[in-house]
């Protein structure tokens, strides 16, 4: 469109708020630096060596002046600090009704899993107007999911889940990039981010038909990997039942109490010795090299769905 693009497109209300902050900060930069540049030029012209000028009583210290150029910029910056920290903290608090999309990063591709079971590679389709929470895991090194149009970015760290969320409000196709250097083809680990209006999104979902949703795939894994042998309600002699645990407190052997969130369920599958539920023996084997991050995410989805089953019963 433009010969030289100067400003990236914005696809969410949040992106416009960031733009506003950046513009305001640029004004501050000008306000803090313009006096320096102007005075430097004025002094250089006025007090050139050999030029006639009034140089009597040249000061070499002035405490009030020193204090004012220490304190005034600091106070101005504090205002910006509060503004920007408030915006940043919002990224940590997704709304409860956010639709969850799982992201798995690996050298050098992005895989997105929709709750209905659709999986896509290097493309992410989302409905506009709907909060979307991304739960991200890495299969190998640290990657970073960067969607410039949303002004968000989050590192994807192996061994844990990180998350981010957004509400896209402008339909269109935007860029996705990996911004954390991740090896040879780092610069080719890109993709497109497609914002569709809800009707189109529903149509897209139905076209890329997938007969089983994520939780059902997890349920299949739960049986085929032998988890059900110990964790099914009928067989709860050796292992705790998982029905209804998601989102609830779990007392541990060590006396701690943790909330069974995505990260806890993930750790319990891959590092089963580390957070053992009170009253049980640490006998579960690790699934570290058995399950891929995608499989683990499917299992997490299944355990979550058990919660809903528990509620309906």
């Amino acid at each position, binding site marked *: 469109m433009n010969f030289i693009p100067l400003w990236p497109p914005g696809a969410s209300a949040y992106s416009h708020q960031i733009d506003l902050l950046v513009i305001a900060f640029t004004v501050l930069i000008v306000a803090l630096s313009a006096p320096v540049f102007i005075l430097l030029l004025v002094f*250089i012209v006025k007090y050139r060596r050999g030029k006639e000028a009034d140089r009597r009583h040249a000061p*070499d210290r002035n405490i009030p002046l020193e204090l004012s150029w220490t304190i005034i910029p600091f106070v101005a910056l504090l205002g910006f600090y509060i503004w920007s920290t408030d915006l940043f903290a919002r990224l940590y608090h997704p709304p409860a009704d956010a639709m969850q999309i799982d992201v798995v990063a690996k*050298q050098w591709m992005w895989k997105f899993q929709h709750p209905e079971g659709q999986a896509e590679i290097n493309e992410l389709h989302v409905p506009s107007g709907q909060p979307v929470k991304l739960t991200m895991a890495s299969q190998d090194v640290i990657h970073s999911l960067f969607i410039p149009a949303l002004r968000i*970015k989050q590192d994807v760290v192996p061994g*844990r889940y990180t998350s981010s969320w957004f509400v896209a409000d402008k339909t269109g196709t935007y860029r996705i990039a990996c911004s954390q250097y991740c090896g*040879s083809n780092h610069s080719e680990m890109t993709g497109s981010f497609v914002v569709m209006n809800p009707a189109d999104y529903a149509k897209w979902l139905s076209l890329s038909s997938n007969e089983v949703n994520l939780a059902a795939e997890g349920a299949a894994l739960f049986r085929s990997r032998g988890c059900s042998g110990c964790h099914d309600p009928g067989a709860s002699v050796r292992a705790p039942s998982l029905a209804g645990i998601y989102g609830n407190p779990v007392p541990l052997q060590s006396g701690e109490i943790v909330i069974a969130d995505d990260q806890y369920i993930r750790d319990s599958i891959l590092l089963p010795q580390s957070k053992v539920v009170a009253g049980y023996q640490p006998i579960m084997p690790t699934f570290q090299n058995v399950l891929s991050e995608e499989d683990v995410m499917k299992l997490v989805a299944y355990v979550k769905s058990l919660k809903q089953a528990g509620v309906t019963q």
Partner: protein
Amino acid sequence: MTDVADPKLEEANVGRVGSTETVAQRVSYLRAGHSLKSWLLTTDHKRIGVLYTLSITFFFFIGAAAAALIRLDLLTPAGDLMTNEGYNRAFTVHGVVMVWFFLIPSIPNTFGNFLIPLMIGAKDLAFPKLNLLSWYIYMLAGLFTVFVLIAGGVDTGWTFYTPLSTMYANGNVILAASAVFIVGFSSILTGLNFIVTVHTLRCPGMTWGRLPLFVWSIYATSLILVLATPVLAITLVLISLERLFGLGIFNPAIGGDPLLFQHLFWFYSHPAVYIMVLPALGVVSELVAAGAHKPIFGYQFVAGSSIAIAALGFFVWGHHMFVSGQSLYASAAFSFLSIAVAIPSGVKVYNWTATLFKGHISLDPPFLFAMTFIGLFVFGGLTGLMLAMLAIDVHVHDTYFVIAHFHYIMVGGTISAFFGALHYWWPKIVGRMYSLAWGRVTAIFFFIGFNLTFFPQFLLGYLGMPRRYHVYPPEFQVLNVISTGGAAVLGVAYVMPLIYLIYSMCYGKPAPNDPWNATGLEWTTPSPPPKHNFEALPVVDRPPYDYEIEMRDEHV
């Protein structure tokens, strides 16, 4: 020997034709021995400073060659010139060589070595042999680096992030980490030497309140060198062991944490940024005072801000980890502290500006480089504040915005100060004057080339071009071409001083003791200085930058 101190005789010598030697040169440190051995086994801080100058220039051009390759490759969106692996190796070499073999030793090990004893009125550094050892360690590490290059390079980036460096990268990570590990000891020994020297070897009357600001800044830098470098050393050891034996400290599969590496790495590498820029701030204080021929405004504040920057610099490393998965509360604290560290830097800039008020400003090359420094440093610093803002950083983190920001500090700041120092103290080091006109031309080329290279990168970053991208979307091409064009101009500015400064060594006019009419003990001794710096132990009885008193003397 004795008549050297006589300024009249000195003047008479200067008045003669350039090709004849002055008395000063005949007894100078440069003439204290001619054999290679007299240089390689010297413990004279001035000669070691010269050795460092030669070696960092060599490494600078290695790093610059890598940068040239990168910029050439980025002329087109597709990776035409190099493969992805080749490109990754090029920017890793650029980063490793520029950070550890140029920027960190750049000003402290060259001008710091040469000038600190001269400025505080001492015969040498406190531990001269240690000083020489430090240069040998530096060279050993440098050879390791060259070997890494020959052996096929390394592709982790200079940051060695785990688990990429420990489990996935296929270059010579261990060799590269060893090179950086070794050069760390050179840093520690140099820092230690400077700290002890400044504390114990100041000449009578050289109180802390009379210390030149360059010495204050090198002192602050040395504190960082000694306190931060060992943490990098142990981190690199852990990286190498993790790669060799699967230690697991940074491997989540057995309960380790990749973020722990980032914490340890940035605990060194953020203060390291101040290792690179604090000496530059010190140089600029000297150049501004000499250029304006006026006492520096707010000496106490400028000196104190160096120490404040060095101390606060240790509290802000987490601002490199805002999107890494670090805790929200840690991020908020680090963001706040990053604002705090900007304040002392601002204080310096405002004080320099005030120094020019009612000064006698001459537009000699050193002063022009100081002005270049201030312009670029202010812009780099303020964009750095932008990066300290959490919400903005989320968008621009790991993009070309960050690249542009830190090149404004590292290249726009440190290298222009390095050039400023080179043009200011060159007559003292070699005893010859160079062409001032060419110096001015270089400063202008540098300023233009630099801005052309790096300003477009701010735009690229905000548009969303991540750093370390070999292949990029076609809409970013125009800005990248501008940047590469600017780099060519910048390259010219790098090569020009090499020519006219070397020319001046043979054909330049002999320099008087004090070619800039500046204050400071280093200008009271002949150019180049005699082997033991001063004929007699100097005694200081006047405040620093005592320019006004000199003026009154003129009028008497």
